[in-house]
């Protein structure tokens, strides 16, 4: 302990500490992700804290000028969603599904024929399993009296959600004769789509009763999801706790 009183030893300790601190400073410079720097600066040349751009915006720095954020470029479509499940249910091949996603909504007539083939193919699968000739088990007009061509045309050529301003919103409401006036988070959209595909004129053709396959519903309910929340109407993410 007496060595602490030695001036040269003190100097050595000081130098070692200085060098050590320089190492840490170097680490900070290498690691500009905002995790290490305690003090957010509006002139440190990086976007950190809650800055909207490099050294601008957020709660501390002056607002970003328009030209400080770059939105330039040509953006090309990669994915698309209108009505739920259309591509996965009716797409005939992976290639076709990829092509569907990068096609214009108003230019989808080329997909209708394949959609209709896929619809009939679901019936062929069940005909074979039930030992019925495939030409004797076919799609029958659904609850809206849509034949296979009309149904698949609506699915392919007009694939968007319809939403009625000032409501009422529903994907299907038999009581009030409403269909496709929007889609709530809670709407059983897949069940309704299956009913259009497999329900026939009364909506219960293949509902699992009387020895039929159960195809008009997947028998899944929303469970413990809460659909009563205000904006953004979605539940906080699940955690592992």
């Amino acid at each position: 302990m007496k060595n602490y009183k030695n001036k040269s030893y003190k100097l050595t300790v000081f130098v070692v500490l200085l060098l050590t601190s320089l190492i840490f400073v170097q680490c900070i410079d290498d690691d500009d992700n905002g995790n290490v720097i305690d003090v957010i600066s509006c002139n440190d040349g990086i976007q950190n804290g809650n800055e909207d751009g490099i050294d601008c915006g957020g709660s501390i720095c002056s607002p970003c000028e328009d030209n400080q954020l770059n939105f330039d470029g040509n953006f090309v479509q990669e994915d698309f969603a209108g009505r739920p499940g259309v591509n996965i249910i009716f797409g005939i091949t992976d290639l076709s599904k990829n092509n569907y996603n990068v096609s214009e909504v108003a230019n989808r007539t080329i997909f209708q024929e394949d959609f209709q083939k896929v619809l009939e193919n679901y019936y062929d699968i069940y005909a074979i399993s039930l030992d019925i000739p495939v030409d004797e088990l076919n799609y029958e007009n659904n609850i809206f009296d849509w034949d296979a061509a009309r149904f698949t045309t609506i699915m392919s050529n007009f694939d968007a959600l319809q939403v009625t301003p000032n409501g009422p919103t529903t994907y299907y409401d038999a009581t009030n004769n409403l269909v496709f006036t929007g889609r709530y988070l809670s709407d059983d959209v897949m069940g309704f789509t299956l009913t259009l595909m497999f329900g026939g004129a009364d909506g219960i053709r293949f509902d699992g009763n009387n020895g039929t396959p159960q195809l008009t519903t997947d028998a899944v309910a929303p469970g413990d999801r809460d659909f009563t929340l205000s904006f953004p109407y979605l539940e906080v993410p699940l955690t592992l706790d």
Partner: protein
Amino acid sequence: MESDNFIFVNLNNYYKTMKKTKLLTIIGGFSLLMLSFIFMSLDHIDATNVVGTSSDIADFFAFEGDNPDNTVFVATIQGILAPGVVTENASFDENVLIEFNIDNTGDFIEDLVIQAIKRGDSIYFFGPVIPNRTGLESDVLTSAPNHIVQISTTEETFITNEDGMSFFAGPRRDPSYFDFNRFINIANGDAAPEGFYPPGESTDFFVGLNVLAIAVEVPNSLLGNAPQHILESQGTISGLPPAYNVWVSTKRKE
């Protein structure tokens, strides 16, 4: 053998069991990571080219807001995200433009768009605005009215309310529900002749999962008049109220 799908179901059941017995978080996180990875390598709700990418749309919703004069648009992307580290690490892509499209004339060509794109820790929204181009390519319409919302985290929710509009972006519980595994069995011919499982035996694939979500609530006065409902002309159904035709697209910077 139903092979791959059989594995998914078992993993899903394993996850449920794990939750009940509160196994170590790290094991749960790892198994879910594996689950999501394996599943995304299949043909999820989209096609092979976009599955597992930052532009992959999981689902889309449009409905009347709590304020009946408003319409709400919700897009979920990058599904499916396991709770924990996968969700915490999920992020929007600064090169992917998320675009809500509104057709208010009935020709299924967008008359208005609401664009959303990430910069820094925020999402910038532009519109509703008339696009200068329609169809498969867009540029960001920076001269349109714009609003900014800080991206929410698993811990904190940020909402911007301005000009009668509301904006949100961040991780949320997946609202979609479907026995997706069984549907794949059906599509592959592996579930004939039974079809779907009866209630109690069915499994909601998405019940324990998260997504990234974008939500916008817009006064209808900014969306124009709605056209005749498409099913009046194409579906031979009469008496339906006028309805916008709306869809969401993701577009990547070239």
